[in-house]
């Protein structure tokens, strides 16, 4: 470690070395590890702030699992075998995030491949711009615009009615179609760019070699391109999944009135419920399950953690 430090300072000089160490420290420790540790600690405490602030730090301020228990079983006088509402929302959020991720993957892989290996010069730049520029629009503005687009009187309904495909308008917002489309759309870039990066570094000759050996296009993708781009694909999927599962603004604005997103429940505990420890416990649970899920996927697809960083 000391040797490494000596080398690091020797190579980069004092100013740059100190700067890099400081920024890394702030980025990782101050902004990431510490707040999460506070949340983690919080999730095991009683909500004394609301019940009796004088007990904070006193002998009764001990660790408890009651918030995690609440998430699973509900309040002590809950007649159901488990906390049906919260657990259902939890599971549905995860499943919906998986669906959004798969949807984005299917949508983005061909685009990323096209950008990396088929499009040339001007077309590539134009496509890149048309991917990036829409994201200059503020997220809230975009969400409300989606309400107009998907509303009962919205553009899509009008078009479908005009074309005679529908007889009656469909409430896309209530059916959550607006939400899933919005989430899918919001994270497209996070799916395209990691895949694009991975696919782009594939030697074109490999594709041609496979073709020359008689392979149809789908087998070229299945055997040559996708295995090569796997780290990029998993990286994109991880980000889209994590961000979808943790999204709050979009579910608030274009989510159906009857179906909650788990983050909304967390938000309620922090905000209207004034129960930060319970909110923390819910948030930690979501985080842990998401991380386990992602690690499991990486294990199944034999992608190492280091490869994601490429």
């Amino acid at each position: 470690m000391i040797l490494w430090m000596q080398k690091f300072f020797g190579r980069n000089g004092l100013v740059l070395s100190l700067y890099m160490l400081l920024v890394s420290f702030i980025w990782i420790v101050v902004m990431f590890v510490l707040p999460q540790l506070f949340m983690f600690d919080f999730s095991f405490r009683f909500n004394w702030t609301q019940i009796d602030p004088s007990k904070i730090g006193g002998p009764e301020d001990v660790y408890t699992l009651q918030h995690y228990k609440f998430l699973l079983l509900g309040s002590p006088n809950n007649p159901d075998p488990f906390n049906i509402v919260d657990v259902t929302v939890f599971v549905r959020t995860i499943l919906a995030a998986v669906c959004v991720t798969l949807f984005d993957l299917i949508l983005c892989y061909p685009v990323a491949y096209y950008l990396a290996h088929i499009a040339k010069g001007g077309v590539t730049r134009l496509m890149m711009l048309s991917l990036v520029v829409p994201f200059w629009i503020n997220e809230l503005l975009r969400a409300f615009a989606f309400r107009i687009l998907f509303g009962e009187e919205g553009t899509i309904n009008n078009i479908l009615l005009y074309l005679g495909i529908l007889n009656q308008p469909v409430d896309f917002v209530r059916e959550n179609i607006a939400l899933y489309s919005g989430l899918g759309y919001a994270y497209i870039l996070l799916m395209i760019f990691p895949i694009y990066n991975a696919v782009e570094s594939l030697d074109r000759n490999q594709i041609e070699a496979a073709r020359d050996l008689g392979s149809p296009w789908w087998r070229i993708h299945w055997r040559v391109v996708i295995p090569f781009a796997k780290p990029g694909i998993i990286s994109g999927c991880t980000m889209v999944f994590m961000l979808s599962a943790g999204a709050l603004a979009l579910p608030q604005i274009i989510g159906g009135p009857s179906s909650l997103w788990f983050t909304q429940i967390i938000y309620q505990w922090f905000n209207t419920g004034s129960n930060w420890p319970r909110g923390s416990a819910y948030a930690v649970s979501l985080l842990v399950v998401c991380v386990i899920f992602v690690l499991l996927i990486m294990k199944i697809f034999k992608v190492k953690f280091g490869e994601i960083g490429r």
Partner: protein
Amino acid sequence: MSADVILENITVKFDDFTAVKNADITIKGGEFFSFLGPSGCGKTTLLRVISGFQDPSEGRVFISGKDMSGIGPNKRPTALIFQNLALFPLMTVWENIAFSLEVKGVGKTDRRKKADELLELVALPGQGDKMVNELSGGQRQRVAVARALAAEPEVMLLDEPLSALDLKLRQHMRTELREIQQRAGITFIYITHDQGEALTMSDRVAVMREGIIEQVGEGTNIYDNPSTAFVASFVGENNAFHGTVSNVMSAKVIVSTGIGELEACLPQGIELNIGDKAIVFARPEAMSFVKQKNLKKNVIKTKVVHQEFEGHFWHLILKGTDDLKIKMSQINDGAKQVYEEGTELNVLIDHKLAIALPFGPLAAE
């Protein structure tokens, strides 16, 4: 098994650049045929046309008499070996070799069996379970050959596959490729800028310049009887003496050059008239020393600039009376003759080995 390949007036244009002009050639079944030329001469484009990756702007390709227009690379009876080999890094060696069989739907045990047979053929027995990056350059080369052979092509196309290897290995692989070709009995079309490769391996060679096929023939014919100034200067080493034709005899001409009158042979099919601009080509090995200057024709006066040793040859860089450099080579007989810079020497250019060709562009040095 082996198929003849006919290129019928192939022209390939990229925007306003013409990569290949009117290539018209018949490659016989079972032949080892090389396209030789400097980089950018259009040889790789031509190979891509044969393999189906590039559509010709004009002309047609026939393989075994069948018009290949509109037939994709995956449906042609050709297998291409890429310059960088393009082995699949995420597959094992045997999976690489058996890829074409996998495409055809051959079962795993049969695929493995065939891959092992081919590994045997290319002298890599028992290496099937390794990953490609665990092999050396020469071994990868063999895997690429095996992978192409597994597709049972009628025509094998090779795009400078030896260029990444070091000299010894390259020379060894030349012999090996030739042997594999003869054992497999299939047509090989080989692309190279290395005349040594082209001459040693091929039955016939086509020399290309700027998209045009300048000459087609057996290696010895190309070397001894080049038909254009470019071929003469590109294939092997050659001294070029520019001048004007001053006399024409049957199959012989006299050209007056900057270093005096030179007599040279006129290759078959080449015509020169008095007053034509011409170039006399004399290879370094077609020269020898003479004691007295005025005894014979084709004796030129030179000064030594520099002497190089290359094992079996001594090379002398000389300067003629027109100050242009002349290269001559002598077999190393162990005598270790050393010439000081500035030594005056009289050199005889063998008129039976020197040839005269019409003026034309030379290969870049």
